[in-house]
Each structure stands twice: as C-alpha cells, then as structure tokens.
C-alpha cells in the first residue's frame, strides 16, 4: 500500500478531540476522545483509535493535518503535524465535501459555535462566531443530560415528544439551567424540560445567525447536531431548511485534510 495515501485530520477542540483517517475521498476511520487537560495525549489516543478503526497502523499515516483551537500544540513534537488549517476553512471545506450543495455550515460545538458561509470551492465568504455569553452550549447540554439522568440520545428522543413549547431564560447557560431546574421542581414532565433545554441551545445559535446572511443550502455540524430536537428548533427559529451532515462532529477534521490539499 502506498504510504503517502493515508492522511489523518485532527480537530482538537475545547471539549473533544476528533481524528479522521482518509485516503483520497474516502473516510476510512474516525474517533472522538475527550480533550481533557493533556491535548497531546488526547490527540495520540484519537489518532491511534481512528487508525485501528481504519484498519491501518499509525506508521502508515502519510501525515497529520491539524485544525481546532489547540492546533498549535499539535504542530510540535511528538505529533509533528504536517500542517494546520484554520478552523473556519476546515469547517467550510469539510462541509462542502460532505454536501456538495451546501454553502453555509452552522457548527455547534462543545464550547463554541459558529456559522461559516462559503462558495462552491469552499472558500470563505463570511463567518460569525458566538458571543461570550453563549459559550459552553455543548458543555451545558452534557451537564443537563446528566442532571436529568439521561443519555444524550434519550434527551433528544424525549424532547421530540414534548408538545408544550416551554420558555426558559436564554441569556446564558446559567440562566437556562436555573430555569430548567425550576421547571423540574414544579413537577414539569421530563420531556418538556428536555425540550426547553434543546430550544434554549437552538435559540442561542439562531441568535448568532441573525448577525449574518445565511446562503442556501444550510447544513449543521458539530456534536450538538446529533440532537434532532435541537436541529428541529434551529430550523424553525431561523426559518430556513437545514440538514445535518453525516459525521457531523468530524467536519473540522475532514475539512483539515481536504483543505490541506491532501486530496487531489
């Protein structure tokens, strides 16, 4: 097997580090690992596990392309990334690769969310990122799932069953949590609480989207895109159709490989 053909994309974020193994246009394996404190260790684990999933050994990798907020820690030994791609570009290239008709990606991650508009080549047209008060939506979602005693999958399934459309304060995760707890203490059905939490997240993301014109087609990426309840609310709030990319949390890692020019 030609050694140079396997490339790893690595997206080290605040909460999770994502690795993807690609050869040309094919995604062979991927893995997500909590970033924790030791980014390099997380990256190593992610790369090792992704390589295993791809059925190759680490040694067969032609190179690592890094993106994400911690990419500067990956450039240096021991990881020695071949190159780095800025996050916005990685998002654009990755989203375009996964959906050729897309022109806007809304990436809802662990701590940060952003929206990127791009052209048919995946070159940047416009970008917007959340304001500081809306940090930590992904972290908040995980915390609330734990508080409700649910897995994230259960959270979204329950949320979709709610018909109440309850409001909770949307200023930030703290206010939302405070109100969500209050609902629980009033004896509100857990499905309605799960839905209110999902709607809060969607509202903050939608709020960010009001700062920029979104070009069709709009796709959603990032860990929270896996919640159908959040996506449903988002679509209704921005009043435009959205679709969720396959491998939504790997868009950055995939885009790093594509953006680096590793795939001709």
């Amino acid at each position, binding site marked *: 097997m030609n050694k140079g053909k396997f490339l790893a994309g690595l997206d080290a974020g605040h909460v999770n580090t994502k690795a993807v193994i690609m050869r040309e246009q094919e995604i062979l394996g991927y893995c997500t690992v909590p970033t924790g404190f030791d980014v390099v260790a997380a990256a190593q684990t992610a790369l090792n596990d992704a390589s295993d999933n791809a059925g190759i050994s680490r040694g067969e990798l032609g190179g690592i392309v890094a993106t994400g907020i911690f990419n500067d820690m990956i450039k240096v030994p021991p990881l020695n990334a071949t190159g780095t791609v800025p996050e916005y570009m990685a998002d654009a290239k990755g989203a375009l690769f996964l959906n050729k008709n897309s022109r806007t990606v809304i990436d809802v991650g662990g701590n940060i969310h952003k929206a990127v508009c791009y052209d048919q080549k995946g070159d940047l047209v416009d970008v917007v990122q959340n304001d500081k008060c809306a940090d930590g939506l992904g972290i908040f979602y995980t915390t609330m799932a734990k508080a409700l005693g649910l897995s994230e999958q259960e959270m979204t399934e329950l949320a979709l069953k709610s018909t109440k459309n309850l409001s909770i*304060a949307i*200023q930030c995760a703290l206010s939302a949590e405070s*109100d969500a707890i209050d609902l629980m203490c009033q004896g509100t059905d857990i499905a309605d609480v799960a839905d209110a939490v999902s709607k809060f997240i*969607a*509202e903050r993301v939608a*709020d960010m989207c009001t700062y920029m014109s979104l070009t069709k087609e709009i796709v959603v990426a990032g860990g929270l895109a896996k919640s159908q309840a959040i996506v449903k609310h988002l679509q209704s709030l921005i009043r435009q159709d959205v679709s969720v990319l396959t491998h939504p949390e790997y868009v950055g890692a995939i885009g790093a490989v594509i953006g680096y020019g590793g795939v001709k």
Partner: protein
Amino acid sequence: MKKSSEAIIEEFRHITENTHEYAKSLQGKGRLLAGYMCTHVPEEILYAAGIIPVRILSAHESQAMTRSYIHETYCTFSHDCAYQGLQHNYDYLDLIVHSSSCIHMGEAFNVWVRFAGFQHKSFLITYPHIIHTKHASEIMVESYGEFKQFIEEFAKKSITDDDIERAIKVYNQTRRLLKRLWEFLRRGNPPVAGREVAAVTLAAQVMDKQECNQMLEQLIQRLEAEPGKEPSGVRLMVTGGACDDMRIFDLIENLNYSTNLIFTDSCTAARYFWFEVPEDRPDKLEAIAEGYISRIPCPAKDNVPGTGEKKRFRFIRQFIEDYKPDGVVFVYQRFCSPQSMDIVALKPILDMLGIPWTELELDTTVPISLFGTQLEALVEIIKRVAP
C-alpha cells in the same frame, strides 16, 4: 343586570391577556392609537387630540432575535418590547411615542423606529433626567409644546386648551379611581385581592380611559357594598420596577401560607397613577409638567441635585405607614441598574423599620419554585418560624 365585581375584574383581566384584540376594537370604532413604553409620556396631550395611548407590554416568552439589536446585558423587558416590534405584533399602532427614560428602554424604542417600520410614525419627547429643579419644568413645558405641535400635524386637528383640560380631568378621574381601588387593600380583610387590583391597574394602562373609568366606577361601587372576603394573611408590599407579568402577583397570594399583596410601587402600578395633574390652570402644559414631576419618581429620574436625595423613598415610607406591610418584596429586572441602586439604599431603611424583605430578580419567565421559596422564606421570617 348588574355585573358582579368578579365579572368586572374578569373583564379587566381579559383585556390584559388580549391587549391587541382590545386595541384593534378601538381602532374599529375609528380611534387612533399611540403606543408608549414608559410612563413619562404625557398621555393627556394625545388624548386631547382624540388619540388613545396604549402601553406596550411584554410577552414573557424566550426569543432569539434581539441580541443583534440590543446588548445582551440590557433588561429582558427592553428586549421583549423590542421583540414585539420586530415581530410586527404592534403594526396596527398609528404612532409610537417615547419620553426619554432609561437607556434600555431607549434602545427598545430605537429598534422600533429603525427596524420595525415606525420611522415615520414615532416621536421622542425630551424628558430631563434631573426633574427636581425649576429648570426641569421649563424644559418639559417646551418639550410638551413641540410634542403638541407634532400631534396636531399628525392628527390633522388643533388641540385647544379645553381639549387638554377635558383630557386632564378624565385622566385624573382614572387616577383617583385606581387609588380608591388600592385603598381597599389597607383594610384587614378587603373585598378584593391584591392580585386582582394589580390586574385591573395593568388593564387601565392599555385602555381608553373613559371606558376604563366607567368600569372602575362600577367595580368600586360593588366592592364598597361587599363584605371583606379575602382572609387576613401576612401583608406583603411589592416595590420595584416594571412588572407586567401577573403570574408574580398570583404567586404572592398563592403560597403555602396565607398572604395578601397590599401595595405595589412600580411603574406598572402605583407610579403610573399616584398623582394628579392640577386642574383648571391657565397654562395647561405647565400644569401637566407639574403633575408629572410630582409623581413617585422612576429611579432613573430620581436625584435631587446637591443632596443626592431620592424622593421616591419618601413615598415608600408613606406607603409603609399607610398600608402597614409585614414584609417587602423587591421586584426588579435583571440588569436594571437604577432599580438595583435604589434597592441598595432602601434595604437599610427597611432594616431600621424592622421590616423583613426579599429580592425577586425578573427575567423572561417566572421561576415559580425559586420565587415561591424566597417568598415563603420571607413569610416564615415574618412569622418567626423556628423549631
């Protein structure tokens, strides 16, 4: 058939829950409508021109649109009012009038003017921030003169002194009637509940005052004939900022203990009507200015130059003396600086008077278990509950 007091109160409450429907019915009768956000607007001048002032209220639902228009850390009330405009919920208004109050509401007004289609149907009245001086009155009279001129052009009719005097008398009648209504709550067991009086007062702010006066007169007549029915519980007085969410007042009277809401000092309650405009004066605009300056001041306007005294506090002390609350509930919007600063100064006064208090921080929704706990804790302190 004579309507019962409950039926009349229900009519008022229905209006607060269906403000757009009510407003449109007035338009249906050929009336012009002017929206206003803060109570510094001299409604009499509008009324004199045949325009009905309608207060803009918030919807208490979370919304995701206003943060690109108004800063994150502006109060929810301002965000919500701005949102109502952006959502075109008030498009039917013929005019929106604002009188400079605080920066948060000022921005909400700006949103309506610049982004919600009210550019050509809006007017901003200059209202000084330091009102406790002679110059304030002069500025206001001049400002009101400009406003009157604008309204005359807008309504295409001239406003005579008689028109204004008539409006002053109608509005003063509303004020007296509302005062009379709240005064029922001074009694040990009143014929009406505080939460009901709060709802009636809110309705008055969106109604045609003549119609409102008729209903108020009927209601007060019924209540005067009725025996006290509300049980005597712990007497709680509310003081603070704009609060148009009746669920808070419902909660105050629906705790695990018997409680009575006996007074509310806020711009959606007593500060709206607890004054009169001098009648039968030769200079009508001067009379209106004098009346509006004599009101219980909004904290954003309450600063006596040189001494830094707060005139609002005198009123609050008088209300405490007259209404004899067992406890005080501070109610204010999160991020409202003027209210918070007043509260800092009011707490030592209450401590000195030996009156326990608690603070409820208003946001989009009413966190019933949180507010309920704080209120019940306050009642337990008042009742000296201990094992």
